[in-house]
């Protein structure tokens, strides 16, 4: 006997992980024309530039780099959704830039504090916290480590935590 566990409904799409996670009837349907659902304005300002990066040509950096890896983009979308799910309030708009080798880099700035997150195709994601010109700390970031993510963003914007 084989047990299969699946999400429901009758329409289509390959990249529906985010929709499934929302567990709402409309959002969970697997849709052929793909979207990224958003709940906050800052998500819009993060996801739009992220998706636009996928149109970068190979060698965009003059060093033969490909555009961001599709797996990196999906991981980044899930990460942003997880941050939005934390309900920390209004986060600043992040700067989103491609990394050589197919990664992406996010940078949030709030006052003197900066939080940088980099997601790579072939290595663990990492973070860097900066206050003023001093590095506070840096390390590996597990993109599903909710408490670590919450702590990082709570540090960035303490008024909204």
């Amino acid at each position, binding site marked *: 006997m084989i047990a299969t566990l*699946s999400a429901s409904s*009758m329409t*289509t799409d390959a990249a529906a992980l985010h929709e499934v996670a929302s567990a709402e009837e*409309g959002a969970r349907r*697997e849709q052929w024309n793909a979207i990224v659902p958003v709940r906050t304005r800052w998500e819009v300002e993060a996801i739009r530039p992220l998706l636009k990066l996928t149109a970068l040509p190979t060698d965009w950096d003059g060093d033969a780099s490909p555009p961001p890896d599709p797996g990196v983009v999906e991981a980044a979308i899930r990460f942003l959704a997880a941050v939005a799910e934390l309900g920390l309030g209004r986060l600043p708009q992040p700067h989103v830039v491609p990394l050589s080798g197919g990664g992406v880099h996010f940078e949030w700035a709030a006052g003197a504090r900066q939080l940088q997150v980099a997601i790579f195709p072939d290595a663990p994601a990492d973070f860097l916290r900066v206050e003023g010109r001093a590095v506070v700390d840096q390390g590996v970031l597990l993109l599903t480590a909710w408490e670590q993510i919450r702590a990082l963003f709570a540090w960035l914007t303490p008024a909204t935590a």
Partner: protein
Amino acid sequence: MSAPTTPMPHFDSPPVIETLLGVQFSPLAGFSIAHFGLYWSRVRGTYPVHEIKPPLVPVLEEEQRPVGGPALGLQLVSEPEARCWLIDASATQLVQIQRDRFIRNWRKVRADDRYPRYETLKPLFSKDWGQFVDFLGQEGLAVPEINQCEVTYINHIEVGAGWETFGQVDRVVSLVTTGSQRFLPEPEMLTLEARYPMPEGGRLRVTMQPAIRRQDAKEVLQLTLTARGRPRLPELGASLEWFDLGHGWIVRGFADLTTAAMHKIWRRTP
């Protein structure tokens, strides 16, 4: 208000980007993974591309009890369940089959793709379904007994066409009102989920979701209308009747739920 008594509106330029006509039936005894390939070999000329997807779990829209809760199901089966997508060369037409489903989708791919209209899509469903049933017969499998029909329309209402921010949902949806006389400011975001019982049986479900479209990174309000219910009889003719009913509810419901200003943009008549 019963749907058939309300005039059917028409939109010359509707924002629909995907449609679905589908039926669910009792799982076909004897239908195995091998039949996906056998069936594809019959229709490969029309649908040259295939993809394998996880199966959909059964959904039954009961008269009194709405389908609710998480859409997760646990099935014990004797071999792996799967769903097969068969896609045409234009990438706009899709047939989905699994042991208890037959679904046909149309989607907009290019900016200049025009919605082909229900009157075109319904006969295409009939044709593909007929081929599928013929195939089952040739393989010695039973004719499916349809227990559920679904019609779904997915609309993408793009930013800049009648609204500018996700808070301006009241410009799109007539259910929502905002204004300077109200205590609450314009919302940052608003999602909508509504369920309407259909007196004829079944249910119309409506969701609205702010989203970014992956294809072009554009902000859209995704308005999805799904009509689902049991046909009068478990066969094609009654299912086509149910599609007509579901389509009518979707078009009239869409007109009811959206504002006159948007209807001008979508060129509504009458």
